[in-house]
């Protein structure tokens, strides 16, 4: 199992990456929609710590951290958001569409709930080919209202596929509170209605997330069929860079910020100040290098615009 101090480091990497993105957005280096994960780091960090190298991850448009934790470099991520061809998708995807074949990171999906059927299919391929890989699918609690959520859970359960569904319940979908859009707000219960073992987890406690995820991944890999985690968390920042946050009270945000997953773990580990300083320095250095890399990035030639609409095929 990953050491707690490593989990701390990973969360810090995600936090700094996101902070860097926000700065770069303000500096107009990054454009389009930008959704950051600040406050929710324990979720992706804990879950990712439970995965093997050839497992697959499907995520949403709030996926910078997931990509980083999966092993995509901060360089490739930032260059992507700069729209440079050194980015993980040649600059075509941007913030919402990070993909990486090498680490089996399947996006970067910006249609809410659109990634769930993909995860089901990836798991189906593994099961049909007798491989013991696991596919992890992240999505927000807003996705739970979509028909594709329901169809996907049923398919996964019916066919006992190796998927771990991870619902990042941060209580809001853009500006709409969960209680305004779900007749039943207990999300783990919904999964149970498909006969999928499901647990709510404190998503601000990375150790709890890591431990639960490890057990769930083991169960899935062992042939136990799909499992479901509801990770209770909170986004500290606005939904995107355009969100004036009219829909929630500052006090509510403040209460959650008190449970900052990074601060909480650091306190509980009683990490010596010097180690913390070093860790920060390392992470900052990583990100500075990444920014420099992105800054040095080059534009994909416009002649390539129509390339990859279809695969490059050998001429017949």
């Amino acid at each position, binding site marked *: 199992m990953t050491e707690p101090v490593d989990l701390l480091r990973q969360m810090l990497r995600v936090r700094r990456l996101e902070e860097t993105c926000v700065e770069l957005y303000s500096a107009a280096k990054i454009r389009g929609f930008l959704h950051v994960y600040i406050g929710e780091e324990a979720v992706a960090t804990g879950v990712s710590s439970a995965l093997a190298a050839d497992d697959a991850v499907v995520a949403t448009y709030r996926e910078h951290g997931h990509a980083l934790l999966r092993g995509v470099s901060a360089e490739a991520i930032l260059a992507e958001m700069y729209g*440079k061809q050194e980015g993980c998708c040649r600059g*075509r995807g*941007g913030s*919402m*569409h990070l993909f990486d074949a090498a680490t089996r990171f399947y996006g970067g999906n910006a249609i809410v709930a*659109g990634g769930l059927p993909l995860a089901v299919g990836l798991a189906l391929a593994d099961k049909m080919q007798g491989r013991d890989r696991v596919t992890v699918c992240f999505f927000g609690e807003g996705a739970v209202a979509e028909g594709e959520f329901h169809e996907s859970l049923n398919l996964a359960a019916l066919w006992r596929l190796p998927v771990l569904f991870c619902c990042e319940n941060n209580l809001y*979908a853009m500006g709409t509170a969960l209680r305004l*859009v779900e007749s039943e707000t207990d999300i783990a219960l919904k999964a149970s209605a498909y006969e999928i073992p499901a647990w709510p987890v404190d998503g601000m406690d990375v150790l709890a997330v890591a431990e639960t995820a490890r057990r769930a991944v083991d169960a899935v890999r062992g042939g136990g069929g799909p499992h479901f985690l509801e990770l209770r968390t909170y986004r500290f920042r606005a939904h995107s860079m355009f969100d004036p946050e009219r829909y929630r009270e500052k006090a509510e945000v403040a209460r959650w910020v008190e449970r900052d997953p990074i601060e909480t773990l650091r306190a509980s580990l009683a990490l010596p100040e010097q180690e913390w300083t070093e860790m920060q320095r390392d992470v900052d250095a990583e990100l500075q290098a990444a920014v420099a890399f992105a800054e040095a990035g080059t534009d994909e030639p416009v002649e390539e*615009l129509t390339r990859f609409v279809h695969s490059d095929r050998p001429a017949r």
Partner: protein
Amino acid sequence: MKTSYREAMREAIRDAMRRDDRVFLMGEDVGHYGGCYAVSLGLLEEFGPDRIRDTPLSESGFVGAGIGAALGGMRPIVEIMTVNFSLLALDQIVNNAASLLHMSGGQFNVPLVIRMTTGAGRQLAAQHSHSLEGWYAHIPGLRIVAPATLADARGMLWTALEDPDPVLIFEHGTLYNAQGELDDDAGPVDLDTAAGRRPGGDVSLITYGGTLPTVLEAAERLAADGIDAEVLDLRTLRPLDDDAITATVAKTHRAVVVDEGWRSGSLSAEISARITERLFYDLDAPVGRVCSAEVPIPYARHMELAALPSVDRIVAAAREAVHAGG
């Protein structure tokens, strides 16, 4: 009055809600968030959560519910955040909204208005940048409109709500911030006719929605070169205003259609085909088309721009038409 496209649209909604109790707005984040593109900002406070109704992320469900509510006597305005997400509701739109009246032998009309944001230009990449309004214009039973000006943003909604049948309003994302003057008594706008936006005699530039500003700019550039372009804003994409199209091309004998949709199977193809059908012997050049490159729209700014109709490409196509053949 100085205003913006966004505010004009908001005023249109507010006005309709005040005029008719049966009107309500429903969609994702129209209420507490204030509207994804802030169109409905402040309306929740004025009309309350029943009539400014936040929905779950259930496009098929709430569009279908809009159809049912229309059947039940309401006049729903359903907002879909972005045209791409409307694909999730397409079954309801095509198989129900567009078909019910005909297949029930005239019994059940569906007085529903669906509004959605369309188009590229804001670096939102492949899943938020489609221009599918021309594609929707293929479906019998739907009326498709694309307000490109403040007056149309202000005036089309009420007419759409008075229509006994479904109307889809496509609002180009780059237009919301457009500023301009609007008459204080700006009134309803019909959903049948195209509008001339610039008179000219040398070539007809036919367009709609988000590309109208680009086309007008191209027309100015052409004017500087001594080419006098007439600009026609289609406004309603289904049914097309054939008379207006025919009139301008009969005058200029040359046409270029500018359409942000992908070229193959685009609305511009239909317009080109119709012009040829009606005016074959009057044409001095084949109808030109300036469309988007046939690619999922990329994020990087230079690539996105390369994919979209540009002033340069429009000018080039117009020149080609003018200098063609005879």
